[in-house]
């Protein structure tokens, strides 16, 4: 592929997945600015793959993997501040885009509970229910069997449900 074609493809991929990758980062780090930086960084790393002529069969999967690794690095560098502390300090996770109060409260509640399940479970929940990825797509990202992924999604959702009941 010519370099100019590669650049064009890269920009098309950015347009298609920028919001999804940002969301993924946002729910991991609970900070809009950090999530923006992380999104930019993820696409820069993705460009390095493309530029070096590496075969990118599933850009979405690769981008999620890069973003996931960036989030893990971030967690390692700085033990995640609990969302409770962030909210107490005035952090507002919702974009306040006209949702009703009840919905915003639930939204906040889910955000508060998400860090209480494992990273893998968070990913499964976000990919399946926020990003609408099919179990097959998720299986491709994780390099696992579709059935295994379906079972794990179900378990992750049950865990979150239990947390909601007790909260």
């Amino acid at each position: 592929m010519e370099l100019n074609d590669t650049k064009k493809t890269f920009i098309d991929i950015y347009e298609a997945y920028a919001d999804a990758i940002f969301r993924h980062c946002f729910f991991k780090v609970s900070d809009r600015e950090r999530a923006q930086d992380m999104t930019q960084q993820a696409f820069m790393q993705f460009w390095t793959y493309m530029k070096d002529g590496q075969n990118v069969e599933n850009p979405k999967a690769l981008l999620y993997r890069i973003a996931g690794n960036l989030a893990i690095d971030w967690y390692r560098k700085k033990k995640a501040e609990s969302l409770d502390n962030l909210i107490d300090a005035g952090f507002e996770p919702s974009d306040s885009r006209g949702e009703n109060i009840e919905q915003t409260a639930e939204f906040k509640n889910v955000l508060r509970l998400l860090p209480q399940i494992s990273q893998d479970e968070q990913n499964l929940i976000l990919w399946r229910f926020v990003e609408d990825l099919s179990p097959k797509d998720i299986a491709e990202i994780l390099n696992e069997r579709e059935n295994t992924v379906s079972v794990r999604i179900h378990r992750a959702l049950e865990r979150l449900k239990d947390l909601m009941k007790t909260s």
Partner: protein
Amino acid sequence: MKKDIVTILKSMKEVSLGEKHKTEIKKHLLDHIGAPSHTTSSTNWYGLLWSHQFKVGYAALFITLSLGSTVVFAAEQALPGDLFYPVKTKVTERVERVFVASEPEPQAEYETKLVERRLQEAERLDREEEFEERTKKIAKEEIEKQADKAEQALAKVKIVRESKKNEESIQLMGTFSAPQATEMMSAKMNVRQDIDDDDNSDDKEDRDSRDDSRKARNSDDNDDNDNDDDRDSDLRKVFERHEDIVKKLDIKKNNRSREDR
């Protein structure tokens, strides 16, 4: 309950980067991959067309056209002291200057060309024996003024060349370790010296082949250096000529005052 939590999770999809930030990141990425961004290029064109330089150009062009082709032609032939001489130096040449590329080297070349033109004017005046004290003063001032401009333009060229060399060394420092980079830079700087040293070698064929391979390896650098040297020597010649003609003007002035006495 399951339905509820799924609904809540689905509502999370509304969280997005936002158009502003999406465009901002896109711009950074375009810079990173080295692709021209549409916004940047359109701004540049607009900015360029309405830059101060172009505005002066438009105004000068308008005045030049208004004055008409006769005036322009008359001005082209004008010599210091003539009625239309200021039109030549302050309008026509200003318009020409606007359309010279903005890089320091073409500008230095153009300013040098103007020094030559000033000298030719002085010579023409001298040949036509119309060198009155007043016109001589104007001619000399014009030569000095133009020589200053050329010198400034040349100084700019030198500054740009130096900063390019520095950038190159910084890039090398980034790519290689400090001792490697220093070694490469000094190797580049010594290439020309090596070639000169090799001229003293006894074995001419051997020397030529080594020269060829070295020149091939460093062809870009040598081409640049050669071009730079050519331009420097052109400018040097102009300045030498300028000094000669000023001296000549002074000698003639002394002769005439002696004759008058």
